[in-house]
C-alpha cells in the first residue's frame, strides 16, 4: 500500500446534475480497486486552459488515499472507460499522507508570504531584480561601461 494523490477532471454537466452521485461513483471506483481513502474533496471549478473532450469548463476533484501499486493499471483503465472523468492524474507521494498535507500547508503559507512581500517590493519600485538577457538586451545598458 502506497500513498497517492489523485486529481480527477470531471464533466461539469454531469457533476452539476448530481454532484453527490458523481462523487460517490468515483469514490466507489477507488474503493473497488482496494484504495483506503484518506480524504476526498471538490477542489475547484475552473475554466480549462484548452478544450478537453469538447469541454471548456471542468470540475476538479482531489483525493488522497492508500492503494496497492499493482491495482493502478486497472484503476486507470477504469477511469478511461468512465465517461464522466475527462482526465485523471495520479501522483505517488514521497511521504505518508498526514506529513504530505502538513508540508503542503507549509508550502502554501510560504508562497503566500512571498507573494505579499513581492507586492510590497513593487510599491518600492522593485524592477524584478537580477539579470534578464531577453529583457536587458534591448534596454539601456546603464550599469555597464
Amino acid at each position, binding site marked *: 500500500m502506497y500513498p497517492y494523490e489523485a486529481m480527477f477532471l470531471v464533466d461539469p454537466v454531469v457533476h452539476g446534475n448530481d454532484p453527490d452521485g458523481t462523487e460517490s461513483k468515483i469514490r466507489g471506483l477507488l474503493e473497488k480497486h482496494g484504495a483506503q481513502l484518506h480524504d476526498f474533496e471538490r477542489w475547484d471549478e*475552473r475554466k480549462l*486552459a484548452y478544450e478537453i473532450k469538447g469541454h471548456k469548463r471542468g470540475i476538479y476533484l482531489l483525493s488522497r488515499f492508500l492503494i496497492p501499486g499493482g491495482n493502478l493499471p486497472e484503476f486507470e483503465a477504469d477511469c478511461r472507460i468512465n465517461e464522466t472523468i475527462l*482526465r485523471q492524474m495520479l501522483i505517488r507521494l514521497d511521504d505518508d499522507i498526514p506529513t504530505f498535507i502538513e508540508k503542503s500547508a507549509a*508550502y*502554501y503559507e510560504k508562497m503566500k*508570504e512571498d507573494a505579499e512581500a513581492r507586492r510590497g*517590493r513593487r510599491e518600492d519600485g522593485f524592477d524584478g531584480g*537580477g539579470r534578464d538577457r531577453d529583457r536587458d538586451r534591448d534596454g539601456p545598458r*546603464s*550599469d555597464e561601461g
Partner: protein
Amino acid sequence: MPPKDRNNKKSKFKRFRERRCRFTRLGVEFIDWKDVNTLQRLCTGQGKILGRKRSGSDAHFQRLARQAIKRARFMGLMPYVGS
C-alpha cells in the same frame, strides 16, 4: 560618459542580489503542481517555460518546476501554447 545615476542603480541592484532562487530562499521542499499562480510566474505569456537564467531558479527547483508545469498542463490548469 556613463549616466549620472550609475552608482545609484548599482547599489539598488546589489540590495536584491542575496538569493537568486525564490524557492531556495523560501526554503520550500517541493513545488506543488496545483499551485497555478506560482507556476504561471515561471512561464511566459505564451505559456513557454522560462529558462533558468530568466526565472532565476536553482537547477533542482527548475527540474521540479518543469515537472509541475507539465502536470498542470495535462490537467488543463495551464496552457500548452498561447493564452
